[in-house]
């Protein structure tokens, strides 16, 4: 009897009422409360109108929010466009006076002296020398740590060690620069002899940079190793393989794309790193392979010029954008290759 009563009471307006309800869950309770107290058709229409208005307002709000969010997303596109335009436009003035060929193949870099020389190779060599040292250090340490953490360490030890290693990634680069200059360089000097090691040298900067990049390499490699399914390892163990054999003959080949990518991304990071090379590697453009000599990296040159009194718009000033453009192109290429390696060669295990 009660049910029949409610049905007869609600039926005439219920379909309209529900349509309103579906868009306004939060206010549904007050609406039904008003329903109970109002029985006349006019007030129902009033209420329907109010619900429709609320719905329109919510739709407008959503449309505005969607536009704001789209605008926020556009900022990242604008940043990239801005970087490319600034670098290209400012270096266009430079390349109008110095040919691209001379810039890319010249072996002397002396833009602040006369006669001016604009061959970037010494800066590229300095950058790569430090980056290669950093790459070797971070790959050796990072891969070793990744294998230990993923294949050998018990879960509890892993949980303690991983965050400690990751602290390394959070330390500012200026601190690493200080560490290289005041701690590592004196050690190198006592090993190789004061006469052979200049205070500012590529080796010290490279070693410390390797320490900085190590957690990045180890985290990315370990992620790739953890993704290798347990069954592959078990199969190898069942054949009597030792842990070392399982690691090097099963896990590493299966996780190779992630390991290679971590190395590429790490070296790219090393190429773009500024403060360590500025503080510890020196300011001498030097086309050398000797890590005990002082070199100047591309980033260090950019910083050196911006700290000086070079007038804006001069040729010397424009060099930092030309160097920046080359640096941007190098790191971008490496990052794209790194991510391509991850996506192209990733083994999909079920």
């Amino acid at each position, binding site marked *: 009897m009660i049910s029949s009563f409610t049905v007869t009471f609600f039926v005439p307006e219920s379909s309209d009422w529900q349509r309103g309800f579906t*868009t306004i*869950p939060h206010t549904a309770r007050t609406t039904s409360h008003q329903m109970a107290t109002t029985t006349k058709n006019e007030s129902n229409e009033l209420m329907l109108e109010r619900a429709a208005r609320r719905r329109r307002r919510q739709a407008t709000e959503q449309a505005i*929010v*969607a536009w704001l*969010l789209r605008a926020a*997303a556009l*900022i*990242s596109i604008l*940043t*990239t466009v801005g*970087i490319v335009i*600034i670098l290209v436009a400012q270096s266009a003035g430079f390349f109008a006076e110095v040919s691209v060929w001379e810039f890319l193949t010249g072996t002397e870099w002396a833009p602040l002296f006369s006669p001016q020389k604009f061959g970037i190779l010494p800066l590229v060599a300095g950058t790569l020398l430090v980056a290669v040292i950093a790459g070797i250090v971070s790959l050796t*340490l990072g891969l*070793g*740590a990744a294998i*230990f*953490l993923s294949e*050998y360490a018990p879960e509890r030890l892993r949980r303690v060690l991983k965050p400690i*290693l990751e602290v*390394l990634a*959070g*330390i*500012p*680069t*200026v*601190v690493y*620069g*200080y*560490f290289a*200059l*005041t*701690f590592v360089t004196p050690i190198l000097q006592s090993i190789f002899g004061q006469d052979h090691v200049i205070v500012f040298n590529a080796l010290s900067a490279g070693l410390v940079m390797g320490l900085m990049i*190590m*957690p990045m390499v180890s985290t990315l490699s370990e992620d790739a190793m953890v993704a290798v399914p347990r069954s592959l390892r078990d199969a190898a163990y069942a054949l009597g393989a*030792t*842990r*070392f*054999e399982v690691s090097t003959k099963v896990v590493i080949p299966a996780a190779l794309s992630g390991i290679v990518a971590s190395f590429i*991304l790490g070296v790219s990071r090393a*190429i*773009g*790193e*500024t403060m360590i090379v*500025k*503080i510890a590697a020196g300011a001498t453009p030097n086309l050398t392979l000797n890590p005990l000599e002082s070199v100047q990296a591309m*980033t260090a040159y*950019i*910083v050196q010029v*911006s*700290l000086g009194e070079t007038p*804006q718009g001069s040729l010397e000033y424009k060099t*930092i*954008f030309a160097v*920046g453009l080359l*640096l*941007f192109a190098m*790191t*971008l290429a490496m*990052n794209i290759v790194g*991510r391509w390696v991850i996506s192209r060669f990733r083994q999909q295990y079920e």
Partner: protein
Amino acid sequence: MNKTTATPTKRQRLRSFRVLRDRIFVTGFVLAVVIGIAGLAALLLDVLVDGLPFLNWNFLSSYASRKPLESGILAPLAGTVWIVGMTALLTIPIGVGTAIYLEEFATKSRFNRIIELNIANLAGVPSVIYGLLGLAVFVQFLFNGSRNVTAGALTMTLLVLPIVVIASQEAIKAVPSSYRDAAYAMGANRWQVVKAVVLPQALPGMMSGIILALSRAIGESAPILIISSLVWVTFVPSSPDSKFTVLPLQIFTWISQPQHSFRGIAAAGIIVLLVVLLSMNGIAIWIRSKYQSRPEQ
């Protein structure tokens, strides 16, 4: 049996060689971890030994000086607070907004894929390049050569934006889709679902990403070095168009001084910087671990 142990077969010799090789390499792997941790310990000890004697209240409350013993970090400390505050105000809405757009609003169109790819690439752009961008766009174009706090904060915002976006996207992805479905079933529209369901659930993850991004902004010196080449600032920035310096920049200035006595001051500055950064990282890790196990219950 005795005979076999006296003259082991080829197979047994191989086996013992393999076990030995395993042991040797384990030592190597452990050594890699140990070297990493020892490096960290050496770095911290080096800084503490050099810097602790200089760390006192006077150091925190006075300005930089030509005399090492009278130098302090008040100006760069205030500059860092300004930069981080303004960067947070700008980065949080833009970064979280971008993440919400990409995860909740965007369709799988080519344009949106380009945005995602672009953000991943921006995360790998060296920080000096952002410095050059800031120098050309903000300092020279927008502020007519004035190397002010706003230019620094805008540059820092662009630098850390990819970190905030990527972390927020991860946090949003971690919200179970059943929560969204429940809200949609109640008749909520997309924005209501985001506002009432997704954001509150994703907040802890976003917070830890934001804190990590801001700690990056605190530690980063290269772009600020290019934006504000002014190095001896002896005042606290009073408005968004004041000149400024930041902690890492002041540390760099001290390291570059020829007198060795400035090294201790630099190390004291590093201790302050590391205390700020490590406590921020600690908070981020704490937030992450506190809320990590919550969903799917």
